């Protein structure tokens, strides 16, 4: 799988979507001067440092960043991400309750989010978790 830490070093502003608990990761990034935030609507992140406690699909949020890392893609509607932005998309086909976009391939991630340029892609050994690292196509 891709090393998020290594990739993130190349960027100045990073947004992590549907992140769940990445407080340690955010702290590490912010400590070395990277402006990193997470957007997650789970109430447990209300008033948590570096978290925006909103639903990025339905609420009004600013997605301006150099890199957007979208975790748990299987749980969200495929929103239109800002064109020309680098992205890392990570999703699975574990079919948990609440999954609305089961991810079965890298090609599916590329198509859903209109990724134009691919830097890296792959899956885990069990071929259940997929990722794509690339750039959203300019329209």
């Amino acid at each position, binding site marked *: 799988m891709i090393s998020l830490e290594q990739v993130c070093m190349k960027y100045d502003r990073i947004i992590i979507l549907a992140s769940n608990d990445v407080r340690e990761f955010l702290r590490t990034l912010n400590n070395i001067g990277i402006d990193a935030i997470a957007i997650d*609507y789970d109430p447990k992140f209300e008033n948590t440092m570096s978290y925006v406690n909103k639903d990025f*699909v339905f609420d009004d949020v600013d997605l301006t960043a150099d890199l957007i890392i979208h975790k748990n893609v299987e749980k969200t*509607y495929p929103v239109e991400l800002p064109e020309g932005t680098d992205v890392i998309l990570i999703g699975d086909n574990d079919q*948990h309750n*609440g999954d609305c976009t089961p991810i079965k391939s890298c090609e599916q991630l590329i198509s859903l989010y209109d990724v134009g340029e691919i830097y890296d892609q792959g899956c885990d050994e069990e071929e259940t978790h997929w990722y794509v690292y690339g750039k959203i196509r300019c329209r």
Partner: protein
Amino acid sequence: MNFFTLKWGSKYGPEYVNRLYGGLKKHYHKPFTLTCYTNNHKGLREEVEVKDIKDLRKFGPTDRVFTYEKLILMEKHESGVWLDLDILIHNDITNMADDPSDYKMIWNYWNPYWMKSLRWFGKGASCHVNSSFVKFDNPEWLIKFTNDNWEKIEWTYKSLDKYLFYQHARNDRLQYWDEGLIENYNVSGKTLPGKVTIFNTSHKYNNKGIEDVLYELHEADSRVIKMWKSYD
């Protein structure tokens, strides 16, 4: 007061509609109508007004947002109360039906919020509201939000209740019946406290991993069945 209900498919027979009417007749103490949106009016008592359920399928057939027809109902009728078929009214609901709220639904007080809902919130697997008994009075904000966001809503949510919970309960837009007015037969130990008892089971079939034994209204104990049949 205008009451509304939905019936399609074969899960519930006409007796569910007819006894719902009988329950209203006994426990709502003002003039009322009951309109049933259905694809099969056979066996319905003549007091029940019948309409085609297709009238409520504005966004076409979908296997998502289960019972989204209830939302469209509010575009067609400015105010009223929508009722699920699988409820038993057993006490005076006049004040509830006449409640001035623009939108009031059920909060699942019988479930511990932290254990059952907050814990699973981030996984999209939570739901702590129930739309089996809803008073509405022209909730324009809800109709507009639904129309403006239908594509996302349909993609994201399996049921109407999940949509309402994640988008509107999360943003404190909903009002709820007071605790104790509406109970859940499958949780409350088969007693009938309050004014209305729901027998909802659909969440068991819409989600994996729910092992609870859940009873439909027609499978309830003899005391409940006797009361239900008395509404014939």
